[in-house]
């Protein structure tokens, strides 16, 4: 293959695979420092109480225990957006699992023994678990000093209430819209708490050193944000905080934002400047770390008889739990994503994050969009049914039109944002829309198809940047320094491909460093929101440009031609039109050495950055502005079977279609699309964190909290890509990471609705929930199925 053909567009396996399949990739969980001590959390057993006394005496006497620290010794408040959190509970505990003390010992065994012996005295307060209750006047208040919190400017907390953020989106006149409507759809939806369930539990190793340097190894998505949070809250200069992140065993949003780093850092300092490691058990991770919020959504939508949606009014109440540092932004994104891929003239949306005495909540893959999508796409399906028009038509009528339409936040869509019409067309083709589904695997089951569309962009502060350095080595191999994290997306490999093609190098000659280190890596704000390839890719390409400029500068002297006449192709630097005048890259990238030893130029190091010139804050009254840096359009189609006997839904075929702009690496894309489907399906069909009346989690494990396993996946996966290049994307590409799971649940519930008329308003759609809805809405289906089974001839297989 001639190198000039390039590697972009080729399905190259992730370059780090050999490390992963041999188990030699290092994660923060694996890192040890000589002399390291072990930390163990002591957590609250009650949901809401004043802390009367934390007695550490018994615990301190356990052999091997060095210290037990409480909130009074760590008077720091931390946070990224809401800034609502104390390092350890100080005056109050706010949920079952709230850390009240940390034990430090020479061994984990000693730490665990001592943790059982910390005696905590509570004066219980009335808890509030239901967000609707928490909104009422006179409800128990969780955060008395909300007015002191240093929340970021984009948010609107309401001190004196349990409202952590209230976001409002308004355009047009929704009441006027309802007047023009021929059909109104009104309903209420509920979505349960979901655990990210990243496999590597939260863990931090921190070493506060005598020279004031703080070294932190952590399993996180965003080392630079960790640095920011730690520096700002503990009052340490950024340069003194060195955050290192090797491979990360999954994040899905749960390792962005606020983690345990500041707590472990202070613990290290107080423990005499010794390294301290904290690893959470799965139960602790469920009970004391943050999960995805639960949602109650009330919606009213108005359509004309032609199928045009002319009014959409929705309220999202987010059960944000005891702390909502990142959920305040989720509520904002859920709000401005309310209209999805449609252009609706009159909209009123309120999205309110509410504190309750339950586990804290945070960002998760999709960031509010899967929740708003699930409401919207079902409303559209039901409206179509009520109007007697088909599912495709109602979508075509309302679809955003690039170049013309305005989004929910009033952003005029550019021509090059992607092509939702092509996406829809391709999706229909892939699932064979209009063709009858295959006969069901068992005669009493109901087989059907459904689909849903989605769109998303990264929700980030307007100035969230990325940067990159492209460094040539003596042999013309390249080291690429970026900040974007490695938790399975394969971005490093895509970036290598981008760089390789810029210089016509084989991709093996480009290396993207895999350990992130805030003191050495190039800055990137976070690895979240499907932004990695886009933002860091742009930065990398600009760094390549910079390096090329340097190379051309040297070459122009050597060749005595203008810089513009120089080209870099197949690893050679040559004069345009006269390819016989050429020098290998390696003879230029460390300066050119003339025969007599004279040298021009020096080591080539290119730098580049990404910064958005597009984004704005949103208007606090109307939610209007530009919140994201691109939009990726896509959709999910499914063929499913419903077993009315048990209520179980089985997905047989999965179809994903996305307008990715440009497929830099189709294999990596396929991995994201299949993986995202499976995660979306698992959340849609199984996952729910359950609480008892005291706010204890009933299923802090993978027995009660079931996650899809290999046997649960569809028989077939297909994906199809639309490639409408984004002019400011890297080689035209857009992000995809979260997109792949946004419309999965919607596609499944739409398939059920289309075949049975059954409305599924509660997530997850687990067998029991679906059975309940069948019994409520169409009980005869169960009887019919049972009769069908009983009538089966002897030969036919039952199970």
């Amino acid at each position, binding site marked *: 293959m001639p190198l000039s053909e390039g590697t972009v567009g080729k399905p190259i396996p992730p370059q780090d695979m050999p490390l992963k399949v041999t188990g030699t990739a290092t994660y923060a969980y694996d890192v040890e420092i000589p002399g390291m001590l072990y930390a163990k*959390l002591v*957590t609250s057993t009650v949901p809401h109480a004043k802390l009367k006394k934390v007695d550490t005496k018994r615990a301190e006497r356990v052999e091997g225990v060095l210290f037990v620290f409480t909130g009074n010794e760590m008077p720091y408040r931390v946070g990224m957006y809401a800034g609502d959190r104390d390092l350890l509970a100080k005056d109050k505990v706010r949920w079952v699992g709230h850390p009240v003390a940390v034990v430090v010992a020479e061994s*984990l*065994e000693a730490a*665990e023994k001592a*943790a*059982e012996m910390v005696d905590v005295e509570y004066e219980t307060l009335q808890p509030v678990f239901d967000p609707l209750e928490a909104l009422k006047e006179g409800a128990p208040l969780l955060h008395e000093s909300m007015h002191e919190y240093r929340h970021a400017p984009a948010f609107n907390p309401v001190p004196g209430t349990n409202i952590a953020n209230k976001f409002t989106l308004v355009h047009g006149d929704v009441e006027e819209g309802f007047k023009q409507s021929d059909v109104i759809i009104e309903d209420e939806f509920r979505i349960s708490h979901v655990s990210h369930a990243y496999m590597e539990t939260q863990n931090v190793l921190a070493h506060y050193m005598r020279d004031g340097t703080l070294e932190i190894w952590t399993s996180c998505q965003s080392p630079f944000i960790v640095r920011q949070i730690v520096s700002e809250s503990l009052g340490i200069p950024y340069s003194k905080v060195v955050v290192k992140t090797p491979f990360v065993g999954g994040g899905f949003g749960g390792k962005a934002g606020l983690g345990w780093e500041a707590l472990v850092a202070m613990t290290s300092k107080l423990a005499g400047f010794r390294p301290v490691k904290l*690893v959470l*058990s*799965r*139960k*602790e991770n*469920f*009970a004391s770390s943050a999960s995805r919020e639960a949602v109650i959504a009330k919606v009213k939508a108005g359509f004309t008889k032609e199928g045009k949606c002319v009014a959409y009014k929705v309220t999202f109440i987010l059960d944000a739990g005891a702390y909502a540092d990142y959920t305040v932004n989720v509520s904002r994104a859920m709000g401005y994503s309310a209209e999805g891929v449609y252009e609706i003239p009159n909209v009123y949306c309120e999205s309110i994050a509410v504190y309750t005495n339950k586990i804290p909540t945070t960002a998760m893959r999709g960031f509010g969009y899967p929740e708003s999508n699930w409401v919207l796409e079902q409303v559209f399906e039901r409206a179509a049914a009520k109007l007697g028009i088909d599912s495709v038509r109602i979508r075509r009528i309302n679809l955003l039109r690039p170049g013309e339409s305005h989004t929910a936040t009033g952003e005029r869509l550019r021509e090059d944002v992607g092509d939702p019409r092509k996406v829809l067309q391709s999706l229909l083709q892939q699932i064979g829309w209009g063709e009858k589904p295959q006969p069901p695997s068992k005669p009493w089951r109901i087989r059907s198809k459904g689909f849903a569309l989605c769109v998303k962009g990264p929700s980030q502060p307007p100035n969230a940047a990325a940067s990159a350095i492209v460094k040539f080595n003596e042999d013309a191999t390249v080291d690429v320094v970026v900040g974007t994290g490695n938790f399975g997306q394969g971005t490093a490999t895509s970036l290598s491909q981008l760089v390789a093609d810029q210089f016509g190098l084989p991709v093996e000659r480009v290396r993207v460093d895999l350990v992130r280190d805030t003191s050495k890596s190039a800055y990137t704000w976070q690895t979240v929101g499907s932004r990695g390839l886009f933002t860091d890719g742009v930065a990398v390409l600009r760094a390549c440009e910079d390096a090329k400029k340097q190379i051309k500068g040297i070459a122009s002297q050597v060749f005595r031609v203008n810089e513009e006449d120089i080209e870099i192709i197949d690893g050679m630097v040559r004069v345009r039109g006269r390819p016989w005048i050429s020098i290998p890259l390696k003879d230029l990238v460390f300066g050119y050495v003339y025969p007599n030893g004279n040298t021009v130029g020096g080591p080539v190091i290119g730098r580049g950055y990404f910064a958005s010139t597009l984004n704005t804050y949103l208007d606090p009254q109307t939610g209007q502005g530009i919140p994201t840096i691109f939009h990726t359009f896509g959709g999910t189609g499914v063929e499913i079977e419903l077993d009315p*006997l*048990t209520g*179980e839904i089985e997905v047989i075929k999965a179809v994903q279609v996305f307008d990715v702009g440009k497929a830099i690496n189709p294999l990596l894309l396929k991995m994201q699309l299949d993986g995202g489907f499976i995660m979306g399906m698992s959340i849609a*069909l*199984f996952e729910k964190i*359950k609480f*008892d009346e005291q706010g*204890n*989690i*009933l*299923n*802090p*494990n*993978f*027995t*009660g909290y*079931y996650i899809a396993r290999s046997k*649960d996946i569809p028989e077939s996966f297909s994906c199809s890509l639309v490639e409408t290049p984004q002019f400011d994307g890297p080689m035209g590409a857009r992000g995809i990471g979260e997109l792949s799971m946004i419309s999965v649940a919607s596609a499944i519930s739409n398939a059920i609705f289309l075949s049975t008329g059954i409305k599924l308003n509660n997530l997850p759609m*687990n*067998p*029991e929930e679906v*059975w*309940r809805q069948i019994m409520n809405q169409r009980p005869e289906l169960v009887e019919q199925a*049972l009769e069908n*089974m*009983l*009538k*089966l001839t*002897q030969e036919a297989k*039952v*199970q």
Partner: protein
Amino acid sequence: MSFGSPYFTLPEFTYLRARRIEEVLQLLEEKGEDARLLAGGVGLISFMKERLVSPSIVIDIKGIEELRGIKLEGSKISIGACTTLQEISENELIRKEIPALHQASGEAADIAIRGRATIGGNVCEAIPWVDMPVALLALDADIHLLSRRGERMLKVGNFLKGMLETDLRQNELVTKFTVPTPKRRSIFRKYAKGSEFAIASISICVDGEVRVVYGSVAPTPVRCKEVEQIIEREGISESSIRKASKVARESVECMDDVLASSAYRKHIVGILTASALKEIQR
């Protein structure tokens, strides 16, 4: 099942590896309450991690040859207490003669756990969601207990008393289970979609006396006499199945827990009854 532990480490204990049954009985006699037997360890180690039990002595019995293996003993099939679920599921004699046990062992947990978990541990652990006791009850199996003071033999149904409760005495060891044959017309089925353990299970045996047992619906497996009578009276036919399914749903008392509500369990009990009877009819 709100299990889950904040702890990574186990409480301290002394580990002893027993070679012979006599050794175990001696130790049990001496240490009684402080000792716990370890077979596959799947249950015991989890329980210790949860701090549900903290024995000072752990006696590993899985290396005792006499406690392992599957044999024909006259008209009975005996299964050593330390036989693993994987061994049971791969055993030809069991596959042919006792399909219910073949199915129950083969579908339990996963290949790694089946390779460790023993039938003895599965029964003695006495949690509501396990599968072997359900089949054993339907098969009218006996459990054999041994102590220095002698041997006892009980019906499995009488051995299981409740959640984490059995009739096992502190000085006793389970040596084996025996299943009277023929038991070819037996079946085990469970419903566990979106769940690691059964939400409900059923085992039916219609060789000789009809026995219909439900698992995962109550602290211990329960027989349903009403369903049994229908089958005794009417045999298995479309109409008797219809009736049995309805009666099962109405008469089997089901618990509420984190896996499912009592109402849903009752429904599933009805469905399992119909589908299992339908299959056994073939």
